[in-house]
């Protein structure tokens, strides 16, 4: 029984059926499945499948987005139960599109994928100054800073963030991940960031690896 309903949650989530997911969650709770299991084996499992498909190119942005929306709504519903049960996230990240840039679709996707790995994400929005990333990381105790840039003229701001993190003395306490269409591995190395990935799903994988010490 419990297997069945979790699978149903996962499959409906993959198809982006948020409404069905939200109907299934209370049923699962009533059936006595603990909230953490619903999260891991229902919601996050579904998100993993979609993420893997996205990485290999068989699913694309819109599919991932609707699935992620379903996951978010489901997760919001589970949140009070998880808190009650004392379940915590695996870590905290802040994310934003760098100063001078307003493209946010890729950034939003990354955010949802990170959440899909059970990471708590603080979204700083777009046109975010380097100082804001650093300040947030310090004040909110983030282990990850995720930077997105879509313009070749704004990707340079990422280097400023790395520099500011050094100046603030938190460089060894945070991992800085970067991405966006014009960014690549070589640029990541050049500016001394910790990780570049080409897509949101691999970003989430890498983030989890950092947070669980498997990087």
């Amino acid at each position: 029984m419990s297997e069945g309903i979790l699978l149903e949650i996962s499959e409906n989530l993959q198809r982006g059926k948020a409404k069905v997911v939200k109907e299934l969650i209370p049923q699962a709770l009533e059936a006595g499945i603990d909230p953490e299991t619903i999260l891991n084996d229902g919601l996050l499992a579904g998100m993993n499948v979609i993420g893997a498909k996205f990485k290999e190119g068989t699913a694309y942005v819109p599919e991932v987005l609707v699935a992620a929306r379903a996951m978010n709504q489901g997760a919001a519903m589970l949140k009070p139960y998880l808190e009650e049960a004392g379940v915590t996230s695996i870590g905290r990240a802040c994310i934003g599109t760098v100063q001078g840039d307003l493209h946010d679709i890729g950034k939003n996707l990354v955010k949802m994928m990170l959440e899909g790995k059970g990471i708590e994400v603080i979204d700083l929005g777009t046109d975010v100054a380097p100082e804001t990333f650093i300040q947030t990381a310090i004040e909110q105790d983030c282990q990850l800073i995720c930077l997105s840039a879509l313009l070749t003229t704004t990707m340079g701001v990422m280097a400023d963030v790395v520099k500011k993190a050094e100046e603030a003395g938190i460089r060894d306490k945070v991992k800085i991940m970067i991405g966006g269409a014009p960014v690549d591995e070589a640029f990541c190395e050049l500016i001394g960031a910790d990780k570049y990935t080409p897509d949101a799903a691999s970003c989430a994988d890498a983030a989890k690896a950092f947070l669980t010490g498997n990087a």
Partner: protein
Amino acid sequence: MIRITVNGKDYYREAGQELGVFLRTLSAEGTSDSGGKGAGLSFACGGHGRCGKCKVKASGALSAVTAAEERCLGETGLAEGYRLACQVKASGDCEISTGEPPQDKNGCVAIEGEMAEFELLPSFSGYGAAVDIGTTTIAAKLFDDKGNELSSFGMQNPQGRWGADVISRMEAALKGEAENLAEAVRGAVNEIIDRIATLAGIAAKEDIRSVVITGNTVMLYLLCGIDTEPLTHAPFEAKELFGRSFPAASIGLAAVPEAEIYIPPCIAAFIGADTVCAALAVGLDRPGDPAIMTDIGTNGEMVIRSKKGLYACSTAAGPAFEGAGISMGMGGFEGAVDRVSLGEGDRLTAHVIGGEKGARAIGICGSGLIDAVACLLEFEAVDETGFMEEDECEIADGVRLIRNDIRAVQLAKSAIHAGILTLMHASGTAVGDVVTLSIAGGFGKFLNIDNAGKIGLIPSELVPRVSAAGNAALSGASMLLLSVPARERALSFSRMVDVVELSTDPMFSQEFMNQMAFEC
């Protein structure tokens, strides 16, 4: 000093010379000697190692292969001795071959366009010229003061060496190339004026008394030597919006040193004088039923006339329809597959530019790309989510599309489609009320409109109402040349247009997602 041999000709440079920079200056030196074949290279992505367009055969003392080269060229490309010029430094003597000499691409530039009625009242006596500086091409026409068109000419924008899109050009300008960029475009404008004068048989160019130069805001800034830095990042502040005259000498137009230069008004950083001109040419500044004008290019500017007023936006579709970012993409030159249709059985029939003269297919251009995707959807080789079952699909002999090409088309077409929907929404216009969708630019002329509807580049309801406006920007510039009152109209039009800022518009983001799929 080291010796760099390019297509058999020797050059001497300092060790550590960046090949990309070197070959770019070579192309600037012209095509007269064999070394100048560097002119055939384009640096579409601005030297970021992403477009692969700067591919050359190179051997000798060169810097190590970069990750970008591995990605772009693959093992086979590298094994065959190819390198990306923008990624390589020459540490010692080396030899480079840039391949086939560049073909003449000038014949393919769109020059003709729709022109609304206007009152003939030229700003000059004698002769006048209208010039449109596009990011990719430059076109011009010569008129006499009776309004007769005497000649016209089109050519490639020589700034292509610094990248295909406006951001790459500005990036180069930021890196200290601003003067070279200005010089290149001024040289081209001088040249094109020379050409049209010669074609019209005018010996004394001093008789050309007036020149209207239109273009997008970035092109005009670079022409005039205005700092483009504020246009490279949000809030994209464009302080200078033109809409007035300049002495020719102030912008280095040696061909016509005494002429009055009029630059039409721009609306914003990414909605330029070319958009204003094109809107004028299709009559959007006149009262009438709701109508849309769009230029489907890298920037995708569009304007709507509605009951509520005039609105404009810029959608940044990217250069997929100009062939960049597509694995075998190219411009609409000889060897490009420009039309594809369903053949017998599971076969596609492809038309190749110059095929009649025996040209072989070497790549695919924007119009061919749209046809090809429409056909693949028809065959169900690509499903409605844009997923292509096979790793690649053959379109013509040796020309293939890969999965990522379909994804690039999805991003580009949905940006245009979502832009149109957002503009209609902002102006309270229902799709049924739109009487005309004018598509400006050369692309609109070659585009199969039915297929554009099929792949969702434009709303399918608008397919029967599409009109190809041709080089409407140049037509509009011609109007401003031949009619002083039209300049007044252009100015008041540019001030009446409300800009819809798409980056913060939730409807745009939503529709951008919705339109990415192919509705079948």
